[in-house]
């Protein structure tokens, strides 16, 4: 109330009128009005003075602020900054506040009126353009002020010789560097807008084609991930068709990180001016002309435009249809949304950027505007999607406007009230989830798992994958197109850049090496190329230039002598030759760098050989792996140094422990590899490529996988790719199980997909029919070769003399504190002694029994000496972990004296 008064509405009556004359509102407002009287606030001046006491004073002050008071400036500039105030004309702001208050009180009185903050319609996506424009604005203004400062400096000088040339003062590269820095680090620090955000940019994933596409549809939240809230993580009904319900990571970011659906479009800012004037000409009454009473008159709706109150309109539906007609005719932008909120008596018009919207077919009285002939034209290629949009057959609706529409799932389900018809139900899924055949038959978490796993599948990266120099690249040697496809797969192009192979799978138990989702593989299949993959790694060497004009050099390899063997793969130019097999410790670049890098030399080119020291680089790969130098590229880095990149290729066949997965979130490692003759075979001589344990099904409930198997089997036997798009059965984008089964029967298979199988070991038939057929299997990037690790004795850390940590450093396997606790509880003291000391960091020390401190061993006297007591009288020799001795010495350096008291053991 005080604020309203401060904004110039001194009459309580007017305020109440503005908010609405409902007596319940009056009751809620009463305390505020009372407070005004108690505080003696009646006029605008009094209100401002009252507020002034509440404003926190700063020690420094601005001139302008002092003049008019801080309270006023806050009300003018900070409070509801989106409502512009011209010449202290506060009325629009007052009305805005009144509407806010009305909504608040409505919410107090009626819980249903509270807005849902997780509602997708109330959210905006921040796009790269907006981020860059903010950054640019900041940098541009910084540059301007810099220029101003330096010109001012120059102009202040009394004696100027030359004419002022402003271009001289343009500090070079402020904008370029600023943009480059922000984009390369991902840190958006814009002081002007108080923005400090990290991780704004990400390097696009190039692990697989799907990972790339999936990464580009990702939406990152601004929430803190650590907060334990369920609201924002839950599936919102309003994200139907806009955000994929399946594709979200597991773990802490679950539900917060989202992905766009297949047809979602994110709007960009549309020009506001013409739209506002259009609204006025369509009968929106300006706010200025309305009294407080008229604001909430029945049958009149407030018109909100991008969050601003534009005015009110007496015929809201009429107005909305008029705007929509204009939009369909293409007169206003196709992404402008008009939403009539009956409950709040508001019309929301939005043209701002960051809203998600999706295309829908328009229907008139339940009859689709898209007719047969349109579709024919589309098939022939005369018509494109944009033509549909332009001709007003299809329009984009955002989340809010969807509430004004009645959308039928299929044309046949439309009723006369229907305003729109979905284009295709499977588009509610995103790219990653779209790869799953029959996802609507799966348990929902399985689809989510597959969304995460599809990104780890090996296959094709891109059409230029063999020309790229990625630091790590996984490729499948013989990738295939899935036998059971979906429409999404075709739309995205996964059928051309696949990441998997169609494996004939028998669902049965075999050999016991298939427990816990492990799979049994056929050795002959592997021999013939199943699951074969290529792993390439990049090695980089830089021919560095130094400050004293000297630079590294690459020299001819020695063909005889000590290093000749390690230099076998080098060409005469000193670089490894493409096609050569590279073994661990092989030299791949015979580089030398000058010893003297600081002091300038008069002839940098003519340095003698003695002025160089060897700076060879050796390949450190796993033993036994036969890697090959694939390509060598000579480029220059950003400092114009010669940069040599080597691509090391390794072709791997699947081995025990490699990870595979179907497209239904069912991953498993290869449990054993078995000869083909031991594998079961069917009546037709078909031998499966892999065997999967049936225990994978009951708890996972991936019915989709079973249908994929049936569909794949039918597809192979009848020669037609079968489809399994999500919710595709009614529209013919997915084959029905009955039809698939009939196809199977027609080709002599069992209705149920189960075959009569002979054991390959005994030769007699198995006592069960086996569910067998092709399933698309992905090879995941996790391979044993990259992970296996064991060591006996090996490298140690210098500081503590304990074994190193981690596979990359050939580290030891840690006996952790929990393991130690077990040993203590068991009483295996000798084992603890052996693990924690003998095999770790044993160290012999000389301990002085007198002072309890550590001494040293004097090799001349062949006796231990205590450096504190300056004698060797009471010295005992004992063993303790080096880390313990280190601790004692560190304590001593902090003026803490640890004394050892020895007793006979």
């Amino acid at each position: 109330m005080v604020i309203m008064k401060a904004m110039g509405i001194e009459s309580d009556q007017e305020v109440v009128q503005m908010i609405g004359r409902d007596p319940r509102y009056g009751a809620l407002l009463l305390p505020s009005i009372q407070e005004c009287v108690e505080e003696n606030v009646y006029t605008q001046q009094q209100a401002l003075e009252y507020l002034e006491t509440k404003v926190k004073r700063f020690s420094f002050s601005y001139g302008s602020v002092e003049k008019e008071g801080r309270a006023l400036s806050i009300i003018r500039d900070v409070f509801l900054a989106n409502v512009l105030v011209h010449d202290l004309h506060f009325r629009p702001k007052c009305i805005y506040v009144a509407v806010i208050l009305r909504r608040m009180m409505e919410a107090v009185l009626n819980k249903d009126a509270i807005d849902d903050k997780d509602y997708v319609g109330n959210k905006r996506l921040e796009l790269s353009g907006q981020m860059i424009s903010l950054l640019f604005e900041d940098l541009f203004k910084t540059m301007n002020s810099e220029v101003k400062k330096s010109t001012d400096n120059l102009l202040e000088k009394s004696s100027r010789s030359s004419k002022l040339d402003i271009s001289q003062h343009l500090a070079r590269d402020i904008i370029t560097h600023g943009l480059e820095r922000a984009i390369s680090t991902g840190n958006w620090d814009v002081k002007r807008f108080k923005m400090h955000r990290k991780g704004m940019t990400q390097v696009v994933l190039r692990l697989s084609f799907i990972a790339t596409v999936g990464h580009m549809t990702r939406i990152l939240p601004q929430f803190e991930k650590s907060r334990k809230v369920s609201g924002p993580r839950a599936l919102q009904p309003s994200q139907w068709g806009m955000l994929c319900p399946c594709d979200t990571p597991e773990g802490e970011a679950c539900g917060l990180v989202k992905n766009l659906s297949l047809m979602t479009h994110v709007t960009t800012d549309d020009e506001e001016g013409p739209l506002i004037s259009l609204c006025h000409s369509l009968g929106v009454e300006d706010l200025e002309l309305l009294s407080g009473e008229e604001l909430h008159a029945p049958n009149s709706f407030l018109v909100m435009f991008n969050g601003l109150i534009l005015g009110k309109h007496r015929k809201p539906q009429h107005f909305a249809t008029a705007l929509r007609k204009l939009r369909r005719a293409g007169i206003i932008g196709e992404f402008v949304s008009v939403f009539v909120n009956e409950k709040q008596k508001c019309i929301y018009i939005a043209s701002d950027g960051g809203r998600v919207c999706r295309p829908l077919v328009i229907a008139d009285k339940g009859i689709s505007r898209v007719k047969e002939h349109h579709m024919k034209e589309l098939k022939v290629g005369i018509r494109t999607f944009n033509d549909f949009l332009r001709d007003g057959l299809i329009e984009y609706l955002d989340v809010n406007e969807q509430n004004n529409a009645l959308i039928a799932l299929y044309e046949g389900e439309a009723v006369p009230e229907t305003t729109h018809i979905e284009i295709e139900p499977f588009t509610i899924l995103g790219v990653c989830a779209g790869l799953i055949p029959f996802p609507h038959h799966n348990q929902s978490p399985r689809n989510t798992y597959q969304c995460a796993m599809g990104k780890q599948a090996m296959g094709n990266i891109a059409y230029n994958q063999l020309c790229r120099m990625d630091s790590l690249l996984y490729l499948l040697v013989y990738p295939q197109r899935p036998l059971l496809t979906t429409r999404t797969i075709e739309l995205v192009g996964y059928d051309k850049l696949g990441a998997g192979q169609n494996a004939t799978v028998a669902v049965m138990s075999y050999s016991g090496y298939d427990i816990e989702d492990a799979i049994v593989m056929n050795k002959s299949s592997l021999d013939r190329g199943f699951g074969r993959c290529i792993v390439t790694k990049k090695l980089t060497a830089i021919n560095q230039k130094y400050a004293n004009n000297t630079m590294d050099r690459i020299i001819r390899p020695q063909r005889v002598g000590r290093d000749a063997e390690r230099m076998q793969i080098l060409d005469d130019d000193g670089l490894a030759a493409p096609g050569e097999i590279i073994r661990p410790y092989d030299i791949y670049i015979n580089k030398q760098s000058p010893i003297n890098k600081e002091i300038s030399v008069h002839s940098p080119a003519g340095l003698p050989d003695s002025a160089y020291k060897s700076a060879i680089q050796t390949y450190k790969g796993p033993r036994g792996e036969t890697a090959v130098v694939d390509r060598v590229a000579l480029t220059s880095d950003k400092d114009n140094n010669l940069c040599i990149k080597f691509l090391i290729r390794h072709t791997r066949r699947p081995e025990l422990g490699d990870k595979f997965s179907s497209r239904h979130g069912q991953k498993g490692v290869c449990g054993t590899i078995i000869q083909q003759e031991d594998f079961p075979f069917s009546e037709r001589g078909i031998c499966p490529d892999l065997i999967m344990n049936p225990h994978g099904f009951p708890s996972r409930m991936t019915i989709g996988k079973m249908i994929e198997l049936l569909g794949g089997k039918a597809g192979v036997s009848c020669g037609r790719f079968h489809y399994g798009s999500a919710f595709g059965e009614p529209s013919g984008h997915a084959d029905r199980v009955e039809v698939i089964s009939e196809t199977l029967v027609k080709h002599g298979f069992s209705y149920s997909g189960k075959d009569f199988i002979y054991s390959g070991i005994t030769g007699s038939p198995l006592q069960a029919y086996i569910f067998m057929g092709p399933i698309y299997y992905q090879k995941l990037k996790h391979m044993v070769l990259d992970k296996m690790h064991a060591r006996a004795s090996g490298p140690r850390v210098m500081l503590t003399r304990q074994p190193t940590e981690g596979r990359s450093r050939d580290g030891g396997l840690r006996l952790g504190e929990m393991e130690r606790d077990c040993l203590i509880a068991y009483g295996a003291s000798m084992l603890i002694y052996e693990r924690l000391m003998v095999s770790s960091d044993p160290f012999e020390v000389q301990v002085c029994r007198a002072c309890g401190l550590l001494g040293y061993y004097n090799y001349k006297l062949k006796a231990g000496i205590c450096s504190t007591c300056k004698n060797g009288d009471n010295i005992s020799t004992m063993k303790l972990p080096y880390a313990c001795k280190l601790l004692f010495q560190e304590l001593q350096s902090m003026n803490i004296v640890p004394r050892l008291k020895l007793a006979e053991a």
Partner: protein
Amino acid sequence: MPTVSPLEMDDVPMGQLPPHIQLQRTRVFCASDAPTQTENIQYSGAYASMGVDNSFRLDDFVKNFRVEVVRLDEDDIEFDMIGIDAALANAFRRILIAEVPTMAIEKVLFANNTSVIPDEVLAHRLGLIPIKADPRLFEYMSENDTPNEKNTIVFKLHVQCKRGDPRITVKSDQLEWLPNGSEFQLVTDNSTSNSNSNSKPKTYTSFSRSQTSLPEFSEDSIALKHNDITIAKLGPGQEIELEAHAVKGVGKTHAKWSPVATAWYRMLPEVVLLENVEDEKAEELVKKCPVNVFDIEDVGEGKRRATVARPRACTLCRECIRGDDWENRVALRRVKNHFIFTIESSGALPPEVLFTEAVKVLESKCEQVISDLS
């Protein structure tokens, strides 16, 4: 299966098994839920209580064993093996897949490969190309052996796609047999090459004579089975030059040495109508079967009856015993000692020879066992 009540059985059924047990012994019952009686009764005294000797008798086997060739063409053979145990039939199958030797490319020497396809993958592809060469004429090459005309076949591949030309596909017919062995010269030290400059330069193989001059190889005996296998694709300016050395090996080591695409058998189907299936039911039954096992015959008086016309065609789709009580009318069985054996040769040897080779392998294995035991 008509079960016989114990009360109706003969008191002492000497010398003969009751019909239902005889059926269980010789047939696999393929019910709609699962097959039963799949195992062979091996124990010689299994039916001793009924006075039936179940032991294996060689002269019985010799008397009863039959092989009938059903179909034989260049690469495939289908024959019936009658009167044999599943274990033995399976042994032949296993040997065919894994232990009959063939020749396959094992070593590939690359002189140049600028194509998009990596060396290892190209080598792998080459390895899988079937070679039409009689492996019986070659010896195994062990690790210490030098490649010679008795254990190695050398092929050469040199293709180039000239700049400006359209892309070309390298097919297997461009692999060229080198009867004289490798043409790539071994890099040797200068000192040794000077001493015997007159003699043949050393190559990666040491053939003492050309393979064409050997009597066992006639002009065309060594070739590739298929001439249209895509090996690689070359873009303009790309070139492949290599030599491929094929050696003898068995499918156990790598599938490329397997002489068969696959070899398998199935037991002879037996379809029995347990009761007369007439008129509409008969028509329904005929319609049900996708491979036309059943026929309808007139039995006079306007009645029609279903008959089992082509039981051999049965793929065991179990369509005829699905639904209602069809399982009471039709019984699907398999004859346990009748195997329809199919061999699909990959091309090194004709399929009928493959089988005899398999028999020889089994024979030598048996001899090995006997000699090891004695």
